[in-house]
């Protein structure tokens, strides 16, 4: 977006073709960016479908928490595993990837004030993804694909299930390709000057990882499809390895997209500063280089790979990606602190944090996403991704506990937060139920943390994931679980219900705003109407110049230094506590 709101975005005058194209653009009254209506339409449909998938996923989630909570034990066993399959696919794949498609269109066309080169292709991709999504969901609903999200062979689903996954992946691959094309054409047509904005650079990272991921997807799902038709053999261990090249890297698309959104929201809400472009960009680059190798951490207690392979891929590659996340975990809050200080909130260590706009769901959602992802997701993830510690964590409840803080508390929450800005900026509507919108990120964040921490504690006590009956009533040997597990099941259930309610509130807000929201008028912006986040009412300055900037940089970000210091201590304590726990187990090797 432009330096100040009054500036003309760098329009390329003179070229007649470009003038003809730009004449059909609308100009955003808040950011002054030019908006290609075709791209805008694609953003809208992808976002709407994402929310529909979210609805399927959250209904399934309610069934799941009410079943794992043994006192309630709501679903039958076959329904529990079916809901689990639905939940995983709709949340982790369909909701997130449809939303990311919207983010890619947004970051390439809107942020660059560029045109979409091939809108028809965009619709084709959307169609493929829709068909894929519908095929997969239909098969699961019909009970022909009770194979869970991972679908490890030789456990077999109906061939149409695999076909659906392939079609969906091809569609997403086309959108990624179009994203690259848009950036290249925008550069050629001088839609923007200088380097790519950091937010677009982050989206570019996500798109590159998406391509790597989707190629893995093709490598693994095409043979699996043939295998399901009885046309070829498949090695279960090779499948697991290739699958995680897809399965984990998709989560890294999410991380890159989420971090890009952090930078975007920091800028929109409080005029967050990019402290140093070099460092932030290098961190994004590290994701691209190492993240697909790091998928190896899913195979740490597998029989197919040796110790050297495991240590090399997880430690060498993963820790360089961890380094990247730790860097963003510093630069984003530092940018917020600097932005707040430059706006005059200079009191003490944490004055900037106290004076932050906590009632703006765009800001609170971004900040909660950052904290939950860093403190809960990052720390637990790195720890269970350690070769030996994985022995006491693999396939226990610690795994879902971990990824519900990264993907759900981190990525999904960032997506919710940015939606409160997309609704006014892209859909041009005032957000409905504004009071609910202000509390929604808080409710969701708190619910998810309660649920995920309960899951992690269950896992530490050895409770398995993906398990219908923790009373073991029909198992061949009598078995009693630790009594504390009942307590954690209850807190998990309560946290899960709070979070699920917050998701339903989000869906209510998003859907009713899109379909019944009031259109924004210029007077709304002047009068500070409700339903408009503060960054939309008055976009903070995005760039600062002059001596006070040099002064601010010299004073530094003391508050953020304290915060990351606390983070580091928590990280080290949790990590070494786990080694201690491991050392008390049976000797094994």
């Amino acid at each position, binding site marked *: 977006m432009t330096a100040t709101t009054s500036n003309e975005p760098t329009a390329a005058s003179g070229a007649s073709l470009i003038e003809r194209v730009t004449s059909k653009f609308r100009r955003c009254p808040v950011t002054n960016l030019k908006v290609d209506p075709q791209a805008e339409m694609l953003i809208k449909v992808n976002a709407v479908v994402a929310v529909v998938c979210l609805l399927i996923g959250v209904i399934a989630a309610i069934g799941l928490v009410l079943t794992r909570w043994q006192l309630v034990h709501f679903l039958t*066993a*076959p329904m529990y*595993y079916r809901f689990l399959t639905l939940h995983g696919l709709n949340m982790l794949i369909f909701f997130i990837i449809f939303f990311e498609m919207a983010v890619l269109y947004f970051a390439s066309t809107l942020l660059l004030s560029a045109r979409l080169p091939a809108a028809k292709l965009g619709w084709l991709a959307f169609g493929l993804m829709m068909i894929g999504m519908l095929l997969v969901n239909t098969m699961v609903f019909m009970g022909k694909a009770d*194979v869970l999200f991972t679908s*490890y*062979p*030789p*456990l077999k689903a109906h061939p149409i299930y695999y076909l659906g996954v392939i079609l969906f992946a091809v569609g997403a691959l086309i959108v990624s390709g179009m994203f690259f094309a848009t950036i290249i054409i925008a550069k050629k047509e001088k839609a923007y*000057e*200088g*380097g790519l*904005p*950091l937010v677009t650079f982050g989206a570019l990272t996500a798109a590159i990882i998406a391509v790597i991921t989707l190629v893995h997807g093709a490598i693994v799902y095409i043979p699996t499809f043939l295998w399901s038709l009885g046309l070829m053999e498949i090695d*279960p261990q090779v499948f*697991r390895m290739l699958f995680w090249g897809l399965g984990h890297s998709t989560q890294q698309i999410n991380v890159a997209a989420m971090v890009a959104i952090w*930078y*975007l929201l920091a800028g929109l809400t409080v005029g967050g500063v*990019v*402290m*140093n*472009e*070099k*460092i932030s960009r290098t961190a994004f680059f590290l994701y691209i280089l190492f993240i697909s190798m790091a998928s190896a951490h899913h195979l740490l*207690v*597998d*029989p197919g*790979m*040796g110790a050297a392979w*495991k*240590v090399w891929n997880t*430690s060498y590659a993963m820790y360089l990606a*961890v*380094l990247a996340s*730790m860097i963003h975990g*510093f630069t984003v809050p530092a940018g917020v602190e600097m932005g707040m200080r430059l706006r005059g909130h200079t009191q003490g260590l944490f004055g900037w944090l106290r004076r932050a706009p906590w009632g703006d769901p765009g800001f609170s959602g971004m900040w909660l996403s950052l904290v939950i992802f860093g403190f809960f997701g990052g720390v637990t993830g*790195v720890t269970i991704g350690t*070769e030996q510690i994985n022995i006491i964590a693999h*396939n226990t409840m610690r795994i879902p506990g971990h990824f519900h803080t990264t993907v759900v508390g981190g990525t999904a929450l960032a997506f919710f937060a940015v939606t409160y800005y997309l609704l006014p900026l892209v859909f041009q509507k005032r957000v409905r139920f504004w009071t609910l919108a202000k509390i929604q990120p808080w409710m969701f964040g708190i619910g998810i943390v309660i649920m995920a921490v309960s899951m992690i504690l269950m896992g*530490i006590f*050895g409770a*398995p994931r*993906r*398990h219908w009956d923790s009373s*073991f009533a*029909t*198992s*061949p*040997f009598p*078995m009693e679980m630790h009594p504390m597990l009942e307590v954690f099941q209850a807190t998990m259930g309560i946290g899960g219900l709070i979070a699920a309610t917050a998701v339903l509130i989000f869906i209510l807000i998003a859907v009713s705003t899109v379909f019944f929201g009031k259109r924004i008028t210029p007077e709304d912006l002047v009068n500070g109407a409700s339903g408009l986040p503060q960054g939309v009412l008055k976009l903070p300055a*995005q760039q600062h110049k002059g001596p006070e900037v040099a002064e601010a940089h010299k004073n530094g*970000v003391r508050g953020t*230094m304290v915060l990351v210091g606390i983070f*580091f201590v928590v990280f*080290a304590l949790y*990590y070494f506590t786990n080694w201690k726990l*491991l050392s008390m187990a*049976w*000797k*094994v*090797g």
Partner: protein
Amino acid sequence: MVAPTGNWWLPASLQEKKWVTLSFVWCMILFAMMPLWHFRGGQNPSGIRGKTTPAAFRARVDRFIKEYQVGTDHGYPLVAPPPGADIYLQAQMWSWTPVLKLKKNASYTLHLSSVDVNHGFSLYPVNLNFQVVPGYDYGLRITPNIAGEFNIICNEFCGILHHNMVGKVIVEE
């Protein structure tokens, strides 16, 4: 959000340098812990890895049961191998065969494999977890350090009655 213009490849400030350095050093510590534990620690997942087939593994388990069976437990063969022996555990929808009777502080080489789909070996409440993959023989040297009765929960989804897949290990003084 703003496209950087001019020379944006600027040096980082002191605080950023400090944090990046600290993060990097920490990542190197994380990196070093794994090989270090292979040399100094007692819990490693490397094991003895080999390929097998469902039929071959099933035959090996049957021979093992025949050799060391001492009784039955809830309808499953109860097997008491001598310390140091190679012991076999077969995962199959939805059971673990046989029931193992081991001696505290004695070492065994536990061979894990599946004769159908993926399963998960989870020793409760010790909380040791390993993936059991069909076609692969995972040999792990184990030394029980506490006496008592333990359960083996399957923690990889393996079909609709997955939650019934519970086995048993007895460790005697």
